[in-house]
């Protein structure tokens, strides 16, 4: 009997998560006795994820690895899953500690926050106004990163964050918000969008407004989606961790936990196959790897992969 590991994502059809699924399949092949159930709601809501979790509990899966739409709202449903003997971990976007065995951060939040500001600052030797375009106002990881960005701000002289707007991970809303930023802040020099949907829309809006060279869009994006905009010059660089590795690692961790090869406790080290080990902190959280920066030199190469 194969082990059933469910990879639950924020919403189906997002390139980032499809890539993570690739990694999960790779891990399953490596392990041999694992079936991956790749699932998630259609739009990014907690209620949708709860329905998915309920049907996974009913199917008696062995493990659930989830990227959460809401840090808190999923806790009761996931608790129920754990009560019924299912191993639950979160990855990418986390769940509150009582709702999961452990959480796998793609990278450490502090590193991501710092990286975002650094990418903006590297192109602004004299400093200048920077705006943040986030996803939904409730997105856990975005909010954490924005906090981290604000923390490191004093280290970058002259960089001034003027506002944070929300594109709700919708292209049209992100686009309109970007247009609004361009109009409202004539001195705007850079837009940081720590979301793969927002960063693409922002780059598009900057190009359409003829502001290429004046405003630099940076943040977190997928090479395949950003390649065109790097070429067009609206984005000089952006960062991301490798989603394939992330899906791979989440699957490996789930497998190790459910087979009892590892325990999710503070301070524990859990194996992630080819990705090495992750060390858990007091909140039972760990980081996979550093974010990786893409620019005109390497983006084409990676665009073919994810």
């Amino acid at each position, binding site marked *: 009997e194969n082990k059933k590991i469910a990879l639950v994502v924020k919403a*189906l059809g997002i390139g980032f998560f499809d890539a993570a699924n690739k990694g999960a399949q790779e891990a399953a092949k490596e392990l041999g006795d694992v079936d991956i*159930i790749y*699932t*998630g*709601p*259609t*739009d990014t*809501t*907690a*209620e*949708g994820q*709860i*329905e*998915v979790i*309920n*049907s996974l*509990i*009913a*199917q*008696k899966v062995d493990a659930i690895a989830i990227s959460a739409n*809401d*840090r*808190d*709202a*999923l*806790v*009761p449903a996931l608790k*129920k899953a754990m009560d019924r003997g299912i191993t639950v971990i979160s990855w990418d976007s986390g769940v*509150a500690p009582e709702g999961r065995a452990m959480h796998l951060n793609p990278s450490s939040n502090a590193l991501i926050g710092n990286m975002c500001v650094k990418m903006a600052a590297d192109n602004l030797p004299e400093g200048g106004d920077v705006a943040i375009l986030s996803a*939904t*106002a*409730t997105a856990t990881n975005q*909010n954490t990163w924005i906090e981290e960005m604000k923390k490191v701000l004093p280290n970058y002289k002259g960089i001034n964050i003027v506002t944070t707007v*929300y594109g709700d991970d919708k292209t049209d809303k992100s686009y309109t918000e970007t247009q609004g930023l361009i109009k409202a802040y004539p001195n705007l020099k850079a837009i940081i969008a720590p979301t793969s949907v927002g960063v693409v829309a922002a780059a598009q809006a900057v190009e359409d407004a003829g502001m290429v060279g004046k405003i630099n869009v940076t943040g977190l994006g997928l090479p395949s989606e950003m390649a065109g905009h790097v070429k067009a010059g609206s984005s000089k660089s952006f960062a991301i961790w490798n989603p394939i590795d992330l899906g791979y690692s989440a699957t490996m961790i789930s497998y190790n936990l459910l087979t009892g090869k590892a325990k999710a406790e503070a301070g524990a080290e859990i194996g992630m196959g080819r990705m090495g080990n992750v060390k858990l902190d007091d909140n039972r959280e760990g980081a996979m790897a550093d974010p990786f920066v893409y620019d005109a030199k390497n983006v084409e190469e990676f665009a073919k992969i994810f």
Partner: protein
Amino acid sequence: MNTIEHTTRTIPDRLKGGAERILKSWESLLFAVMVAIFIVNSFASPYFLDPWNLSDATFNFTEKAIVALALALVIISGEIDLSVASIIAISSTLMGAALKLGAGPYELVAVGLATGAVCGAINGWLVTGLGLPSIVVTIGTMSLFRGLAYIVLGDKAYTGYPSEFSWFGQGYVWWVFSFELVLFVALAFLFYILLHRTSFGRLVYSIGNNQTAALFSGVRVARVKFILFVLTGLMAGVAAVCLTSRLGSTRPSIATGLELEAITMVVLGGININGGSGSILGVVLAAVIMGLVTFGLGLLNVPGIVMSIFIGLLLILVIAIPVVLRKISWQRKAG
């Protein structure tokens, strides 16, 4: 000089027998559909026929169905309320705010219900007091109420609801019967009585059929409609309590899109969208059908959007089939 014969011919009360009525009714069609889906599900997935799983499945529809019960009355009266999901959002938000002010579980429930009722009253006043069409009023309040939730909460969330409070959305009354399910059954029974067994229900039907004639018959049309909107707000408040308790937290985006599912339930349940006819039993059956379909497809890991294709087709087919059958039978008679 009395030329009109006063025949003492009495008119019989009813012509059609009860059995014939029941067999030909919409509810029997829905019941057949429900049984069919149940059987198909049992064969399609080995996990379906498990009491705990079925119990989990009820969470897929109870909150929406509670709202749908009251919405059904509003729609029978010829109006509509698109703002129910937003009322849930603001109710939940104010419950969270009350929590921060130190409210206990029962005070939280009171805040949730009261907020719902007040929002319903606002809708009711705009529709009956100012005489505005309910479809556009509630498109407006839909944005307004959710917008208020965003103003209060922004990117924050309320968490840390007390564990006693979580019973409303997660607790079980007995064995596999959750509090939500029991509450829904009880409310369905109450709404059944209200609509089909009280004079208030009769007034609702009369308004939906012909508002002017109802007014000219002494029905307090505005008052009845106002009460219906308040009732719908109140039920949205009930749903907000359940949902907030089940999620254990509040975000302003809570319950997005719930209004369309509730309306789909009402329409699938055989309530005439133009008002005047329909029954509570139909709505209950439709709720169960929708719950079974989504749960059955969920067990097969069918993506949610594909499920919604099924629901959409079901909606069109269930309404179209009787029409087509009637047309065919006429043609036979004529030809």
